[in-house]
């Protein structure tokens, strides 16, 4: 009898557990849809009033008179993201090759925790560092050196801080990409008389190219959505930037800076939710394509 009871309670436990697991799984899988739906629900008011294209390409941002043009913010976002990517990409690629092909054990032993810690530093700390080091450097040294008077709070400052934030992230993916390339390939190349560097250039980089592109894509979407660190150093002037030393006002900063007034001006909350939706769609798109390339690449190798 007691044996029967134990069996019942075990299978009961199993069933309860199975259902809780299923509930959690369904919740997690439907999360992207729920987030998109929620943001669309809030921003639909504005979308129906103005239409997507007129909002994205309009340059006027005057919430008080009901004009919401996202163009300056989108352009700022693109400027900052591209600056960050151009700065970070060569460093990441070279370091990844160094760590996977040349580096000795002790270098790896130092660099692993360094990358881990860099990846774990909160964005506020990066922002503080940006204000303490990067902004004064641009304002006082780089500015006078180039003969311009700049405040330092600029696209370039945002780009530098962002570049350092995405380096550990991109580096980890790149190291994976290079480690996944079969060693036979480089061995074959070396045995045919190619130098180490020729092997890297013509075999490893060529073979890993889709993965490298995908890693940069992921880094780019990470940079595109980063908020606080950029907000702290980029200057936040809602004008279309025309150069690296101009202040900018990227989309995430727009959302973070204006949440206070959001509810007191009509349609303002709708506009901010729409910018969150734009971020969501852009980042999701980039991520999806990059992940797809990486998955296809893994299958082929």
């Amino acid at each position, binding site marked *: 009898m007691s044996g029967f009871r134990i069996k019942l309670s075990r299978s009961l436990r199993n069933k309860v557990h199975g259902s809780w697991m299923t509930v959690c799984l369904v919740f997690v899988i439907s999360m992207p849809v729920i987030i998109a739906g929620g943001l669309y629900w809030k921003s639909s008011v504005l979308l129906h009033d103005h239409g997507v294209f007129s909002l994205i390409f309009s340059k006027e941002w005057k919430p008080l008179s009901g004009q919401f043009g996202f163009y300056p913010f989108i352009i700022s976002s693109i400027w900052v993201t591209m600056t960050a990517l151009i700065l970070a990409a060569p*460093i990441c690629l*070279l370091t990844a090759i160094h760590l996977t092909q040349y580096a000795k054990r002790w270098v790896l032993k130092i660099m692993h925790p360094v990358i881990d810690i860099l990846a774990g*530093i909160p964005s*506020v700390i990066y922002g*503080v560092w940006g204000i303490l*080091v990067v902004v004064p450097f641009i304002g006082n040294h780089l500015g006078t050196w180039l003969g311009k008077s700049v405040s330092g709070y600029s696209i370039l400052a945002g780009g530098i801080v962002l570049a350092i934030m995405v380096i550990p992230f991109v580096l980890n993916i790149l190291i994976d990409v290079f480690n996944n390339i079969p060693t036979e390939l480089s061995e074959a190349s070396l045995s045919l008389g190619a130098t180490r560097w020729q092997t890297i250039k013509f075999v490893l980089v060529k073979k890993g190219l889709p993965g490298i592109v995908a890693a940069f894509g992921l880094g780019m979407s990470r940079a595109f959505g980063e908020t606080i660190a950029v907000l702290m150093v980029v200057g936040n002037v809602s004008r279309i930037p025309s150069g690296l030393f101009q202040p900018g006002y990227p989309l995430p900063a727009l959302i973070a800076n204006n949440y206070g007034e959001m509810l007191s001006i009509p349609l303002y909350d709708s506009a901010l939710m729409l910018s969150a939706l734009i971020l969501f769609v852009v980042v999701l798109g980039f991520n999806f394509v990059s992940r797809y390339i990486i998955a296809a690449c893994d299958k082929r190798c």
Partner: protein
Amino acid sequence: MKKFLKAEEIFFRVLMFLSTTLIGTVLFLIVFSVIKNGLPYLSWEMISEVPSGGYYFGKEGGILNAIVGTVYLSLGSTLLAFFVGLPVALMMNVHLVRYQRFVNGIRLILDLLWGIPSIVYGAFGFTLMVYLGIRASLLAGIITVTIFIIPIMIRAMDEALKTAPRGLLEAALSLGSTRSEISYRVFFKQCIPGMVTAILLSFGRAAGDVASVLFTAGFTDAIPTSINQPAATLPLAIFFQLSSPISEVRHRAYAAAVVLFGIILVISLLTRIISGKYKKNRINF
């Protein structure tokens, strides 16, 4: 030709060495400049008192409210995320082990969720708050941060569970265990270091993020006594104090940054120690 090849290789090796060094140097620079600017202003008063009346004009007080708020918020959301995340991670590796395509689909969705910027989670949390009719409070903050860290936690746990040998599952099944027993008594135990790493990683993320709590947790000078009260968090306190025109207040932001940095470093150190220590208890095939 040979000379050129040699020169090219040396040139790029130097570049590679330089870029690797650069990354190390940047970390050193960040640590150095934050500590150098913050440490002189860090005092016992800073971390043991809540802000008093004129705190934001440079008078007495500390940031205890923010420290406690951060701990409450991160603990609450890590706990909630654990109860949702662990079953999903186990299910992916125990129950659905036969449907690899489906599991890979779930992994893709989780990776996509991981990539979504935290400000979007913040905005979504705000929408949810409006929909449910709750004010900016500790509860709203916890819910938002939970949603934000669930994908991170599941993916980290999943990476650990993936390494468990398949034979373990087959052996346990053949001895008559139910799937839930296998999940908790075999797979969970086998992968404890990975689980602890996942939890600490999520805790660190929860403690360090601003954008997701900006809309939802509110900000207050008091230590929250109930879940319906607003709560201050450390990153948010740093952010607000830095935008102050008074240099006294800004200096305190630097000191608060040192405190936050300390918390994150301790978590990262703990992760390394724990994952090293428990490795000995694993069953190896």
